[in-house]
């Protein structure tokens, strides 16, 4: 029996006067991997950002529910506590804040929400050692300021490291493959696969089918101009790889 994790209904949003999402529908069950593909500017990052609760975007229509609860108006932090995770396409640099302190604060804020005690230093460090190994994060990066001076690939690994530490129910990976060479891509994909279980789900946003060789999706959706215009299984990704998007979007002016 499939158990619904997240349901997006008729979602529309805008920023300023610009409409970006124009009616997105998507259901993700526990244990599933969904890939969202689509041309540049089609709204993939916007969708992931809105899912994570970025209120720079104004939701004008529709709803998002997560584990049976309507979260359309919920703060980003509460979504995070309840198991939502977004690996950013462009991870943010936070100068002066150490990676480790940041994560510890994040975990403890969640514990506080659930009425649990702060995580003991020893357990925390053990967890850091284990999870950073999983994604091959360079030891020196742990104590550096969050993402500051990290290479593109290091930033992406750091995102997956954070994901491993927070152990979310829904992980949204926004173009995690961009900026990774093939070895890094394999390590990161391997890390993601190890974290997969029957209890959680993953939404993989990507431009290229390459990543999907390693993180194999159950479903593939094509987002275009703020709407999902086609869904299928993993073969859809292969088809897109061969034919491009134009045959779907009706854009022939290439």
């Amino acid at each position: 029996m499939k158990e619904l994790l997240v349901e997006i209904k008729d979602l529309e949003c805008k920023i300023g006067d610009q409409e970006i999402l124009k009616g997105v529908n998507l259901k993700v069950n526990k244990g599933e991997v969904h890939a969202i593909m689509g041309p540049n500017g089609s709204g993939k990052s916007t969708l992931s950002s809105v899912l994570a609760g970025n209120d720079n975007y104004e939701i004008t229509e529709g709803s998002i529910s997560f584990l049976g609860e309507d979260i359309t108006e919920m703060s980003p932090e509460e979504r995070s506590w309840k198991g939502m995770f977004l690996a950013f396409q462009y991870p943010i640099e936070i100068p002066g804040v150490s990676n480790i302190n940041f994560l510890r604060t994040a975990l403890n804020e969640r514990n506080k929400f659930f009425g649990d005690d702060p995580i003991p230093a020893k357990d925390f460090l053990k967890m850091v050692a284990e999870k950073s190994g999983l994604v091959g994060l360079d030891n020196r990066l742990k104590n550096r300021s969050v993402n500051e001076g990290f290479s593109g690939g290091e930033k992406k690994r750091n995102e997956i490291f954070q994901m491993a530490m927070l152990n979310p129910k829904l992980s949204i990976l926004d173009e995690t493959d961009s900026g990774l060479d093939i070895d890094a891509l394999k390590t990161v994909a391997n890390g993601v696969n190890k974290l997969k279980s029957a209890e959680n789900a993953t939404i993989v946003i990507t431009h290229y089918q390459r990543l999907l060789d390693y993180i194999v999706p159950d479903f593939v959706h094509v987002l275009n101009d703020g709407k999902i215009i086609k869904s299928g299984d993993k073969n859809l990704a292969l088809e897109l790889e061969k034919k491009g998007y134009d045959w779907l979007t009706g854009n022939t002016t290439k």
Partner: protein
Amino acid sequence: MITDKLIYSSLVRGDSNTSLDLLRKTPFPSRKDEQWKYSPLKKLKKLPFINNSGFSVKSISTLNLPKMNGLILVLENGRVNANLSEFHKINGIKLSFLSSSKENDNPIINSKKENYFSLLNSSYLSEGISIEVGSGFRVQENINIINIVSSNDSLINTKLDLILSENSSIHIRQYFLAHGKTTNGFINHNNNFIVQNNAALVLDKFQDLKNNFHISNDFIEQEESSKFISNTFSMSGLLTRNDILNNVNGEQCHSELNGIFTPFKNDHIDNHTTINHYFPNCKSYENYKGIMKENGVGVFNGKVIVHENAQKIEAFQQNNNILLNDEASIYSKPELEIYADDVKCSHGSTTGQFDQESIFYLRARGLTLKKAKELMILGFINEVIQKSENSDYIDFILERVLEN
């Protein structure tokens, strides 16, 4: 004018009549004066200052200061509060209070460095501390000097004269505080430091004077191969003004001026600094961080002057600011004047607001909005705060910054 209203029993002795003469000839500054362009003195000028010497601070623990090691010297309303102080003899240090010293105080009036407030100070001195560190003594204990105003409308003129002899070192912590609900008091302070060859001085200044005035004129003379580090943490004040004049009079010196200032609700905090490089082969670093909130106003005017023949100078100056809301403001003016040709200097200033994407990133990882902002503030001041190597003191500053 303040001086006309004074019915004053001050410690004016010896040559200080000269400073009184000079003071009489010096006009009270106004905003037309380049040095006071951004800081209004109207209110200060109008106040009916009185000279009050009563004590009302019952114990030092009510001040919520960090753990202190070493000497604790408490001045309240310009008088030594011996009950709150902790004296003992420290090897290598000669320490005296002007009020109990038999010698005449002969302030060195150097007309080049004097201004209205430094002259007001030496003309109407309430109390002064004089410290001499003997040659070769590297003092492990701190000297903590707590300077409190606890009486409304009182004018307090205090000073610290400090000589570090060759090869000596010391760490001084000054606290300038307004007690309880005190309003419109004025602590007008002078620091006169001489750092001789190969000596090292660290000065931490903590200033928290909500609803009160405070001006500190710091004059530092450095000799060859000496080191001077000043960390200024200015939390609040109706007007808190630091005038630092750091003259580097020898080669191979290291000078560092760091600061964090956090004006909020009706506060005005002004940092004016000048570093004079007269000799070659020296390094100076200046780093001030401002966090302005509500209608708080911050001012940074830092000047580094590399004089002719002062070759191979490395001088870096930086001022970064965050405005937490629309009513807050900052005037930032970093200045470099270079008259030598073989130098490495830079200066810069940035002012911004919290980056919304950064806040979202932190919240998406589970930090509340409040925690996310706190973490951003900690990150912002981190490089400056780490200059104080004592973790009790660092925690104390962090806590006070976040409280604001």
